[in-house]
Each structure stands twice: as structure tokens, then as C-alpha cells.
């Protein structure tokens, strides 16, 4: 070997060291600087298994179970472990077609051959029994227990609501949810989701490359068990609810009953309705499509919260109370009724024939339009108190809204509407700034025109009158967790702007309505009922029949609003239904079976 080459040993040694350094630099990056590898390592070996808690139960006010859980099973498959499959036998067992089987296996395989995916979801307990016996023959398949919501009676579908799998939007908004979780989508299920759902638990298992379970991670140090959801005690009276739904058979409309002394909702009927069990489990999507496409009955539409009606004559009570408070109306104020209220130019607000002149309670008894046009005009044109029409109108509007009208009540159910008590700004825009007067908006006097009130607001108005001036925000859940606890959110009294002293004379009139007035057909011997009829003008068809009432007169136990769409006079349908409801609630029996029969059998939907 040539002498000149002997320094080459250093080149070689240097080369070795250089390459060694490159390896070390790479190690520094991979082991010390990069984080992605340790994350991937955890993803490789740790399987996070969610422990699903049982959802909270819902009881009615008498302790009857309304909503409970039933075991259901998801059939899972790990494609890699499926071996020697008797496809025909398996399809027969599950009850599917072979083409379906191939498609589902393909889908599962696409997701992962090592990880489980849902093959068939929500198998009922009955079918599970059969499947379970034979499942051992089909390696790669196993079942995961889940729960299904069940409703003990087919009532209060809108109120109970339903649950469904979360969609990607919900997951993005709330990190609690993972794909496949259930979430309340409407009704109580939605508004009390966080109480009902409980807390998911987590088990961390270590798996090998074939997804074989190698035991729990660090002896379960990071595991947590599921906490069951909290039970809810609803203020709903299941019996009353069912009776209301019966009375509303083949009618469109709603019934809302409230216990005035607490604001608890006793029943909330929206008709037409549907069986809540239709929106459970595997049949949910199919049935939901059918229900949502029913454009004639619109069964998914919760009329009690989301339908706005002009309150018609029932609104006269509010005008009377606001008029008294404004100092322009007194118990013995009398107005003559010449068959209507002239607006000038040959136009007038018509009135039916009755004797006169009437005082305040009598005006309620006979629902005189002329009387309330004058009352309304006297409020708006009260130039002693207010300089302008607008100022007076705003005072009136404030008084009206203090009864919980024209704004959301804040009840514990989703989807509630504001209703509409038009603002002065609205009339400014419609008629031109300051180009309107009392007579321009006179329809407000008798609860017609732009004004819109939901059945729940109407019932709350009734409760406010029954309480002589205040209300508790209506709510459907009276206790959370323990039956004897109180739903703390709803313990504040909301006072109207009208002093309690002004209510008695109005209530006097309401009693006369039933005793010998427009709603004489609602009269009962045993119970003193105070009510007011209403007929909401409906530009699209026959008028809506409305009746609000409460009973007993002293220490009222129930305040109720009934709206029957396209039924004509308030006295014809709504009043008898309301009286039946009250009789049912207060006495537990029906003394007028012929009235009940008429109401139940009448069909106001067909032919529309």
C-alpha cells in the first residue's frame, strides 16, 4: 500500500463519523423534536371505549313514567376477523338481503378491516335474543348494548321531543359529542339535554396490531365510569294530556293548561300530533320523512308554541285591564252600541245585536266590539296624559306586553315564538311617520289585525288574570333529580303593569260570560268557570275558535287556552272543550258525556 495513501484512513474515519452524526441528528428530530410520532403511537395502541350512560327518565306530575329507556343492541363487525362465513344463514338470521350484506361489508371494510363498525344498528331486545344464540357461529361479529327511548303512552309527542344521532355540525359546536352519540333534537329531550344525558364514561384498552385486547391501560388509572342521566319530573298530567288529545281528535289547534299558582304546565296539546314511538330507533328516519312530508296535517309542527293567532275578543280583557290602569275606564263606564263603531267614511267595526248601553262586566259578557273600540280610542287619544298618539300607543303596548305577550316567555321548551304586538315603528313604516291615529289601528281594540299570540301566551295571560296580576314563567319540568325538589329557574313572579285591584271587575265579567253570556254552553253546575270567547279572523278560511278560562274563581287551580282552527265561533267548539278539560282536571270525571261525544266525534279537518 502506497505511503501517500495513509492519510486516507482519516478520510474513512471521518466519513464514518459524518454518517454517524447524520443518524444522530435524525434521532434528535424523530425522538426529541417531533411530536407527531408519539401521538401516532397512542393512536396505534390505545382504544378509547365510550361507556354510554342511561338517559334520564321523565315522569308526569303524578309520578307516572312517561319516558324510559329500553335496551337495544348494535351489531358490530370487524371485517378482518370474519371467517368461514355462511352468508345465507347469516342474512337470514339478521333479516337482510345478500346484496345488502355485501354492501354493508364493503362499507365496513372501507372504514377499517381491524376496527369495529356498525353492521346493523338498534336491534330490539326480542330479535337480539334470537341473534345472540347463534352469533358464536359468526366470528368477527359482536353486539354492543345501547339504549332506545321509549314512551309509555302515545301522548305529548311535541313536548317530549325525540333524540337522534348527532350530526357533524353539532360535533363541531360541542366537543362533548362524538360521532354515533345521541342528542335531544326537540322538546324536553332537547331543552334538558345536558341534564338528561348524564356523563359518558371512558375505558382505555390497549390493543395490538390485530386489534386484540391486551388489557386495560395502566390498570385503568385513566378510566372513568358512566354517570346516568338525571331524572326529570314533568308538570304534565298524563291523564289530562291524553284527554286533551282525545278531544282534539280530527281537529287542528291546541290546548294549553297552566296551574296559575306555580306556572306549571298541566297539559300542552298540539293537534294533529303523532305517536312519539314512531321517532325512535331504526324506524325514525323513515317515519320522520313521512311525518315531515304530511303538508295537510303538519304533525311535526308544535302549534302550542309556534302558531300565532290573532286573539280576537279574548284580547278585550287586556284592553279592559290596561284601560282601567290608564284611568280611562271604570266599572260603570257605559257605552252605547249602535250595531257597530263608526270609523267615518261609511266604514265601521261591526257588532252583533245585544241590549245596551253596557257597563264594563257586561261588555265582557256580551263581547261588545263598539265598547272596546271606544276604550281603545280613549287610551290612545288620552291627550291629558300623553302628548302624542305614539306616546300613548307605546304606553298601551307596554301594558299589553307586561302580560307576557309579544315576546318569548322563556319556557323550558325549544321553538317558542315571540308572538307579535306591533311596535309604533311598524305603523310608522306602514302608514308613514306619525300618519296614523287610534282609528287607523282600531282593530287592536278587538284583538284582530297584525296582533299575534301563541296558545301558550294565551294560557299564560289567563293565568295572569286568574292570579290577579302576576304570572310565573310557564314550565314543563317541575323538579330535577328528586321529585320533591323545585325547578329553581321558575320561582320568580312576573307582575303585570295593571294593579291587582283592577282585576276583580274583569273576572266578574268573565264569570258572566259563562253563566249567561257568549259561552253559556261551557257552564257547569259544580264549578265556577271564568272565561272569554274569541273568534280569530282567518283570511285563509273559516275563523278560528278560541276560548280562555280559569277555575275555580277563587284560588284558581287551572288556567286554560283552547284554539280550534277553522271552527268558527269561539263559543261553539273551544268553550265546551275547555270546560270538559277543567271538569276532568278538577273532578276527575265527566258529567256531560253527550258534550264529550260531540267534541270527540266532530271532524273539522276533512273537507278542508
Amino acid at each position, binding site marked *: 500500500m502506497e505511503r501517500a495513501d495513509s492519510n486516507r484512513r482519516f478520510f474513512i474515519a471521518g466519513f464514518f463519523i459524518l454518517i454517524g452524526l447524520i443518524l444522530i441528528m435524525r434521532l434528535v428530530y424523530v425522538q426529541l423534536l417531533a411530536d407527531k*410520532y408519539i401521538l*401516532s403511537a397512542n393512536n*396505534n395502541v390505545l382504544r378509547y371505549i365510550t361507556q354510554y350512560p342511561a338517559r334520564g327518565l321523565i315522569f308526569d306530575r303524578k309520578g307516572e313514567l312517561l319516558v324510559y329507556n329500553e335496551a337495544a343492541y348494535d351489531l358490530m363487525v370487524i371485517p378482518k376477523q370474519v371467517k368461514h362465513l355462511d352468508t345465507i344463514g347469516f342474512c337470514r338470521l339478521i333479516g337482510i338481503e345478500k346484496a345488502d350484506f355485501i354492501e354493508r361489508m364493503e362499507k365496513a371494510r372501507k372504514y377499517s378491516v381491524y376496527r369495529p363498525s356498525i353492521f346493523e344498528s338498534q336491534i330490539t331486545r326480542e330479535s337480539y335474543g334470537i341473534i345472540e344464540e347463534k352469533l358464536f357461529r359468526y366470528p368477527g361479529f359482536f353486539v354492543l348494548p345501547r339504549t332506545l327511548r321509549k314512551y309509555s303512552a302515545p301522548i305529548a309527542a311535541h313536548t317530549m321531543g325525540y333524540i337522534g344521532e348527532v350530526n357533524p355540525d353539532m360535533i363541531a359546536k360541542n366537543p362533548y359529542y362524538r360521532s354515533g352519540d345521541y342528542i335531544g333534537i326537540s322538546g324536553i329531550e332537547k331543552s334538558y339535554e345536558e341534564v338528561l344525558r348524564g356523563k359518558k364514561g371512558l375505558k382505555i384498552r390497549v390493543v395490538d396490531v390485530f386489534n386484540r385486547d391486551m388489557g386495560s391501560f395502566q390498570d385503568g388509572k385513566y378510566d372513568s365510569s358512566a354517570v346516568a342521566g338525571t331524572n326529570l319530573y314533568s308538570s304534565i298530567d298524563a291523564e289530562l294530556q291524553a284527554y286533551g288529545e282525545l278531544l282534539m281528535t280530527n281537529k287542528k289547534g291546541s290546548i294549553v293548561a297552566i296551574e296559575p299558582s306555580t306556572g306549571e304546565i298541566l297539559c300542552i296539546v298540539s293537534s294533529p300530533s303523532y305517536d312519539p314511538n314512531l321517532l325512535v330507533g331504526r324506524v325514525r328516519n323513515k317515519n320522520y320523512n313521512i311525518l315531515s312530508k304530511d303538508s295537510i296535517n303538519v304533525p311535526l309542527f308544535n302549534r302550542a308554541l309556534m302558531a300565532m293567532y290573532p286573539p280576537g275578543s279574548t284580547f278585550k280583557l287586556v284592553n279592559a285591564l290596561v284601560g282601567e290602569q290608564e284611568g280611562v275606564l271604570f266599572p260603570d263606564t257605559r257605552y252605547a252600541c249602535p250595531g257597530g263603531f263608526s270609523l267615518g267614511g261609511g266604514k265601521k267595526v261591526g257588532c252583533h245585536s245585544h241590549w245596551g248601553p253596557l257597563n264594563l262586566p257586561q261588555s265582557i259578557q256580551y263581547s261588545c266590539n263598539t265598547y272596546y273600540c271606544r276604550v281603545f280610542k280613549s287610551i290612545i287619544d288620552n291627550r291629558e296624559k300623553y302628548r302624542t298618539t305614539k306616546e300613548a300607543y307605546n304606553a298601551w303596548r307596554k301594558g299589553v306586553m307586561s302580560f307576557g305577550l309579544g315576546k318569548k316567555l322563556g319556557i323550558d321548551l325549544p321553538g317558542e315564538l315571540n308572538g307579535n304586538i306591533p311596535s309604533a315603528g311598524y305603523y310608522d313604516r306602514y302608514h308613514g311617520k306619525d300618519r296614523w291615529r287610534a282609528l287607523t289601528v282600531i282593530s287592536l281594540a278587538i284583538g284582530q289585525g297584525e296582533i299575534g299570540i301563541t296558545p301558550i301566551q294565551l294560557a299564560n295571560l289567563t293565568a295572569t288574570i286568574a292570579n290577579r296580576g302576576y304570572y310565573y314563567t310557564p314550565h314543563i319540568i317541575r323538579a330535577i333529580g328528586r321529585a320533591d325538589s323545585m325547578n329553581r329557574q321558575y320561582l320568580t313572579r312576573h307582575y303585570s303593569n295593571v294593579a291587582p285591584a283592577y282585576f276583580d271587575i274583569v273576572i266578574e265579567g268573565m264569570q258572566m260570560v259563562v253563566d249567561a253570556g257568549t259561552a253559556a254552553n261551557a257552564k257547569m253546575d259544580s264549578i265556577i268557570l271564568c272565561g272569554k270567547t274569541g273568534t280569530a279572523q282567518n283570511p285563509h278560511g273559516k275563523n278560528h275558535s278560541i276560548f280562555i278560562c280559569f277555575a275555580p274563581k277563587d284560588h284558581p287551580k287551572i288556567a286554560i287556552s283552547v284554539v280550534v282552527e277553522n271552527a268558527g265561533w269561539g263559543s261553539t267548539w273551544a268553550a265546551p272543550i275547555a270546560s270538559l278539560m277543567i271538569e276532568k282536571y278538577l273532578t276527575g270525571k265527566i258529567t256531560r258525556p253527550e258534550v264529550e261525544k260531540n267534541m270527540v266525534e266532530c271532524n273539522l279537518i276533512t273537507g278542508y
Partner: protein
Amino acid sequence: MTGIYLILVIFGWFNIYAAVYDEGHTSIFDISQRYGKQMIWILAAFLLVLMILLLNPKIFSQFAYLVYAVCLVILVVVVFAGKEVSGSRSWFQVGGMALQPAEFAKVGTALAVSKYLSGQYISMKDSKTWFSLAIIIALPAILILLQKDTGSALVFLAFVIVLYRAGLNGYLMLALLLLPVLGILSLVMNKLILAGILLGIAIIVYLYTKRRIHHLLVIAAIYLGSVGFIYFVDYGFDHLLRPHQQERISVLLGQKTDLKGAGYNVNQSLIAIGSGKLFGKGYLEGTQTKYNFVPEQSTDFIFCTVGEEWGFIGSLVVIFLYLWLLLRIIKVAERQRSKFSKIYGYCVASVLFFHVIINIGMTLGLVPVIGIPLPFLSYGGSSLWAFTLLLFIFIRQDAYRYELV
């Protein structure tokens, strides 16, 4: 050197235990498992060492060509009669154990190269010398290629280092080093642009020379050779490599991401090593390797177990041990008086070096996946014995360095 050898071998044994470890078989001496078998290989290797140390050191040089010839014959036989394991026909079934002649061929070739270069009338300037050496090295490599064991065949490239030490032209060596760089560039870049860049470099180089006509000719020749090489690489990639080899290279160059297919091994390997962090997860606590996410983790990917369980510190120690061993071999080789011993020492260093960088580089995603074992650490009798022979023949020579001339 013996000390480093022992440390690596025993450390390897423990890591194989960790890599194969499952709760069912907990005894490291259980010979039904790989670590048990490795223990037997190790014990047998010690016997081998004993035998070598008892032999007259002169016979290695005397029988060098014979050993080489026997290796070639066996390689030929194995091409036709070998056992096929995952696509390669490179195994011999002898009784209960499988031997891989390719591993031993390295020893034979090292002996033959040393013997030839230590010949009395060898001139490094003689083209006949180069031709003969090329044959000696290429013959076993080609036979191994025929067994479809590309990785082991590539190892023979390591002998270039020996040739460099023995007097190979330095420029040629530089060219050989630059060729892989050029090869990679030709795969990731547009070939025309690359050729243009090279032209620019050639012109600049020419302007810096004395601009004589023969400079121009040499530069032009090199330039044309380079461009030819670029196109050859591209052609070779498409037509000579097998699909899985193309995939591995594409994945490495980042032209493809295929974490479930060709990139799976390397990705899982990086995950295992990367998750070890500074101190590792502790012995037998590795999750990636223990639960079989890393394929071949007791043989070619044994370094993953080291990286995951012993962390950066452990990996560093292993790399330092190898470096130390290599530098030590060079140092010892330089003190040999016998030309044979000296060249043989470089053969040992070169082959070990190639194995170590390719293997660890592969687990770290630096070089394509080439299935060659990590010396002394990887599971496998053939490779352990071959490396033991390789190293201890040299140690034996060194012990007699004053008597061997």
C-alpha cells in the same frame, strides 16, 4: 473490540426478547421462542470464536481463495436448491435450522479481496488489478441478486471503501459518492432542468481551469457521462426495479404517501422510535413493538425496540458503540504489519459500516427499506455467525500481528 461485541450481542438478545415478548412465554431461555433460539445462536457463536482463536492465524490467508470458492459454490447451489422465504430463494435448510449463505459470502469475499490485494506483484495502477477485484466482488453479489436478495447484494458495494484505502483514485471515489446524489436528483427533478444545471456547473468548472483543450474534453466527457447516468437511472427505475422496490423509493423521496402499503413499515418504525422520546418507555414497556405494529421487529427493525424502550439515550449509546467499534477496527487495522490483515480489517469495517448505516437509516426513514440485519443485534443465526467470523478472524490476526508479515 471483544467487549463491544459482547455488549452488542447480549443487548441484542434482550431486545429480541422485548420485541417478541408476550405474556404467554416469559422465560428468556424458552427455546421455542426467538429469544431462546437467539441464545443458542449466541452460545454457538461463542464456540465459533473459540475455534477461530485456536486456529493458526496463517490459515486465513492461506485458505482465503478456498473459502471464497466454497462460498460461491454454495451460493450457486442455493439459487437452485434453496428454500424460498418471502420471495427470496436464499435459505438453506440444514436440519432444524435455516442458514443464509449470503451472510457467509461476505466473509469469503473479504478474505479473497484481502488476499488478492496483499499479493506481491499487485499494482494499483494496473487495470488488470481493478478488473480482477471487480470480478471477485461482483461474482457473489450477482449470485445473491439471482436469489432475489437485493439488500445483501448491495452490501458488496461496501468494498469500495476498502479499494479506496488500497489506492483507488480519489476523484473516482468522489464520483462514486456523488452518483447516488445525482441518482436521487434525477428521480425527483425534471431531467432536462437537471441536465441544464449540470451544464452550468461544467461551464463554471471549465472557466476555473486553465482552459486547455484536454480540460474541456474531460469535463465534456464527465458531463455527458452524468447526463447519461441521469437517463439511465430513470430508465432503470422504471424497468429494472421490481414494483415494491419502486414503491419504497418513491415513498422515501416523499413522492408518494402510502402509510398502509409501501410506507407502512417505515411509518410504524418512526412512530415506535419517535414515541421513545428521551429516556424511552422502559424495558419491556414498548407498546408499538410489543404489539406487533412494527413488522420484522426482531430482525431488520430491531432498532425500533431500542429506540422505543431505551429512548434517545439508548439509541445514542448503540450508535456510539458501533462508531467506536468501527474506528477501533480502523485503528487496529493500521497497526498491522501484514498487508492481508490490514486490508482485511478495512473489509470488516466497511461491511459493518454499510450494514449499520443502511439498517438504522432505514428504520429512521433515511434510506429505502433494504432488508439487511443490524450486526450483532438482529435476530438470526446466519448473520450473527457471519459477523462473528468476520470480526474474530480479524481479532485473531491482530493478536499475531508481530508474527504475521
